[in-house]
C-alpha cells in the first residue's frame, strides 16, 4: 500500500504494537502513517453500520482514523506522533465506558 522512499534522512526506529502485534515506525511519524506503512489499511469499524474505515485525510478533518492509543479510545491516529512502546488498538464500533 505505502512504502518509505529508499534514501530518507535517518530517523530513529520506534516500536509499537497494533492489536498486540509488533510494528516498527520512524520517529516523527504519525500513528496513522505508521499503520499504513505497516500494511494496516482498516483501522476501525464504524459505530453506525459497522463498515470498515481507514485513514482518509491525514490532516485531522475526517475522523476516519480513530484508534485506541494506550487505552484511550477514539484518538485521531493522524494527529498523534508515534512513541516507543505505544499500544494501538483498532476500534470496533462504538467505544465503551466501564462503569
Amino acid at each position, binding site marked *: 500500500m505505502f512504502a518509505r522512499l529508499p*534514501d530518507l*534522512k535517518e530517523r530513529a526506529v520506534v516500536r509499537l504494537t497494533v492489536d498486540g502485534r509488533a510494528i516498527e515506525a520512524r520517529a516523527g511519524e504519525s500513528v496513522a502513517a505508521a499503520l499504513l506503512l505497516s500494511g494496516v489499511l482498516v483501522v476501525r469499524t464504524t459505530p453506525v453500520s459497522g463498515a470498515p474505515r481507514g*485513514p482518509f*485525510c491525514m490532516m485531522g478533518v475526517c*475522523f476516519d482514523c480513530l484508534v485506541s492509543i494506550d487505552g484511550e479510545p477514539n484518538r485521531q491516529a493522524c494527529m498523534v506522533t508515534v512513541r516507543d512502546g505505544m499500544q494501538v488498538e483498532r476500534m470496533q464500533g462504538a467505544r465503551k465506558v466501564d462503569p
Partner: protein
Amino acid sequence: MRDSMIDVAVIGGGPAGLAAAATCAEAGLTTYLIDEQASPGGQIYRAIADTPVADRAILGADYWRGEALVAAFQRSGAVHLASALAWDVTPDLEVAVSVGGGSRFLRARRVIIASGALERPMPVPGWTLPGVMTVGAGQILLKSSGAVPSGRVVLAGCGPLLYLLAAQYRRAGAEVALILDTTPAANFKRALRHLPEFLLAGSYLAKGAELLLSAQRSVEIVRGVDSIVAAGEGQLRSVRYNVRGQEREVSADLLLLHQGVVPNVNLSMAIGCAHDWDGEQLCWSPRLDAWSNATVGGVAIAGDGAGIGGAAAAAERGRIAALDAARHLGVLSEAQRDLRAAGPRAALRRAMRGRRFLDLLYAPAPSFRVPADNAVACRCEEVVARQIRDCVALGVPGPNQMKSFLRCGMGPCQGRLCGLTVTETIAAARGVAPGMVGHYRIRPPIKPITLGEIALLPKSEAAIKAVARG
C-alpha cells in the same frame, strides 16, 4: 501557560499564521501561535522542519520556500504552542486551548485566525472504502514520512494540487497508473477571459505548465471524466468511471481524490463571524474588512481560511492582519501601519493575479459536488444523498433542520467534511442558490475534547445557580 493576558493569539501555523505571528512579535507584542500540528508549516510546508525527504528536488522549490518563513518565525520571539487545538474563542477573546488532554483559556487582546484550507469533499459512491484517500493525504504522507504508494494508484479529480502530487510522485520515482481528470470542458471557455491576467502572473504560468508537462510525460491521463465509482468489498479493488458515454473499469489499490481546497471555517463559524457564499470559489468565506477583520470584535482572519489565495498570498495576508493588530494595540500609528503594509499589499496583488483564471478553470463539476443518490454525503453518520433529497421533499429548507432529521453533521467532524455537500445538495433539490440555504450552525468545541477536560474549566457562582437543582 498561565491565564494572564497576552497581546495576540494567532491560531494556525501555516504561512499565514507564521507570518502574522512573526510580524506581531517583531512589533514588540506578546504573541502566541497555537497550532494543532506537531511542527510548524501548515499544509503546504507540512513537516518542513523535520521531513525525512532528503532529495530537495522531490518536494520542489515552492515547498522549501517555507524554510525562510519558519526561520523568521522562530527568530521573532513568538511563543509556539504545538499540538495545541484552539477549540473556541469567547466574546472576551479568551481562546480555549487544549494541549495534551488539558484545556486552558488564553486571554488575548487580539486574535488572528489562520486556520487554512481543507480539501473540498468529493463524495463519489464508494469513497468511504479503505483504500480511498485524498490527494492531500498522499502528499502529507510524502512530506512527513517520505512515504509513497506501492500498489496500483489512481488519482482522480481536478485542480493544481492533483498534478502537483503526480509530479512529486514522479520525482520520487513512484508510479501513478492513471489520472482521471474531471475538469469540465466548458470551464476553459469561462476561464478564458482571465487568461491574459493569468499569463502575466509569471510564476503561475511556469508552475502550471511544469506540473502539467511533468505529469503528462509519465502517466496516462483521461480527461472529461464525468462519473467515478470506487468499488470493492471492505476495501477498494477497482475504479469505475465514465467518459463520453463510455463506462470503463480499472483495478486499483489506492484511489486519491481531490477537487480543490476550500476555507476551513469551523472556528470562525463557531464564534459567530458572518460568512458569505462565494459563488466563484463555491464555498463559504468569512466577511472581512480591508484589514481582514471579521464581524466579531477583535478577530481577524488571514490566509486560506479567509478565502483561497494560495501560500504566497496567505503569508502576505497574515502580515497585513498583523500590522492592523499592532495598530489596534497602539504600537503602530495608522500612518506607520499603512506604510509598512504597502509592501505586503503589492506582493498580495501579485500573488492573487491569475487566481480567477484558476478558480474558473478548476471549478469542480456539479455532478462531483452534488452526489448521486447512493453516495455517502456525511461520512461520520453514514447519510446518503437520497435521504437528504427525501427530507427536502418533506419540506426541510436547510442544513440545520436536515441535521436534526438525519444526523448529518452531528458526528465527530461536526460537518467539516459534509457541510458543503449537504448545503449544495439541498440547494440543488430546492432549486435555489447555496447562499440562500445556509450552513450548519457550528458549536464549540470545534473538535471533540473529553468531558473531564471540560469539567476542570473555571466555573462561576452564576453557573452553579444555573445548573444545580434541588
